[in-house]
């Protein structure tokens, strides 16, 4: 698949270390997505809660 991207290295990158990186990056990307999702929900809830007192005041 991506063998072409693997240049000969003078240090041993370790097969396990190479394989796990995809998983790590996918996990980080998923965490960022989940974080963004929850911050959107949090933002929406906060804006609703903040709006109510103003509307009451009006």
């Amino acid at each position, binding site marked *: 698949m991506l063998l072409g991207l693997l240049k000969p290295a003078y240090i041993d990158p370790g097969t*396990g270390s190479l394989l*796990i*990186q995809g998983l790590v990056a996918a996990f980080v990307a998923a965490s960022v997505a989940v974080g963004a999702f929850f911050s959107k929900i949090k933002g929406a809830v906060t804006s609703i809660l903040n709006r109510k007192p103003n509307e009451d005041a009006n």
Partner: protein
Amino acid sequence: MSDRHRSSFRDPSGYLFSQEGTLYRAVSDCYRPHYDLLHLSGLYDELTSSGLLIPHEEETRVRPRGADDPYKVLRPELVEFISYPYEWSFSQLKDAALATLAIQRRALKRGMTLKDASAYNIQFHRGSAVLIDTLSFEAYEAGAPWIAYRQFCQHFVAPLALMAYRDVRLSGLMRLHIDGIPLDLATEILPRKTLMRPSLAIHLHLHAWAQKRYASSTQASRPRKVNLEALTSSLEGLVRRLTWKPAGTEWADYYDFTNYDEAAFSDKRTEIEAFVDTVKPASVWDLGGNTGLFSRITSDRGIPTVSFDIDPAAVEKNYLETKRLHERMLLPLVQDLTNPSPALGWALSERESLLQRGPVDLALFLAMIHHMAIGNNVPIDRVAEFLSNCCRYLAIEWVPKGDSQVERMLSSREDVFNEYDQSSFERAFGRLFTIQKKRDIPGTNRTLYLMKTK
């Protein structure tokens, strides 16, 4: 005959050599495209201007002897004192890790990546962690994995996690394992609660499992496409969250419990200042420098000073203070003088011993003699011999048996130190040194000496 450094042999991209006392780096022909890209991409300028990479001049007239003509010869700016990760405090190793990741992040933005992530490639230069290996970069192809990921985890993540979660003294494992702490060993020692930390669970525990699982795999690996920016961010977050606070150790609070009163302390300081002004040293080692109070006499005068201490808490405090004050001339390091850093690595030539990195112009050996002679049973003449190999000038403080510190040391053991008296001390040191000044410290029973090696 080749003038190549014996420690410089792993990377075919180039090597270090010396001529007439000047250090050079040869760039091999095979590294030409990467070296050119380092400059053309603007990465070299960006990293050197931000103090993350050691700057160099290209030399056209110097060529290594006994070797093929290289593509380039570089003359890098010199680092005053080469130190090793097993001599760093927690925050020094953490700052070295963060510097490595900051470099990787900037490299990725300019189409390059670090092809190695050795902690030994980072040095403390004028108060900052800086990459000294200019040949650590290569062209980056989007989606390729990080070749140096294993090395980064072994050199930085494993020791930092062990120091933060188990015991700060475990950095000593770096002295035993020259290519970083094996991940399976780190995960054996780390407490189980680290499995609950997602980043440590992945970068250490799962990583160690994957190494073991695929260790005997003979098939060519087929890694997935990797988002290296995400990987770098994850490692940065992990390293930033690792913390260690020095507390409750014997020496970090030393100055609060000495038997000096304020006036005596001030007199001692004045005498040492006078010694320094007499010698005018180009470089100084403070052996047993604690949190660096006396080391700052010389570093504040602009003299490169290394402040060694056995206590990682004292060294941590000292390092954090150098950062707070933006001190460029003081380098605190962990060093056990009863068992100093040895020569290490292949043919004992990859890492230099403490003595190989000397001798220094002036060594301070203040309130230390009793720790060597009584605390570690070293005969005084052998202390003199070691110190004569360390320095050209020596500022040393004699601490007699009547001193409360010595009495405390002898309170729980038999006094077998019949030779521990001032005349024996002067006789032993007089064989290797000329005593140039001798000053009693008023209000104490201690004496300061300035000596010059014979």
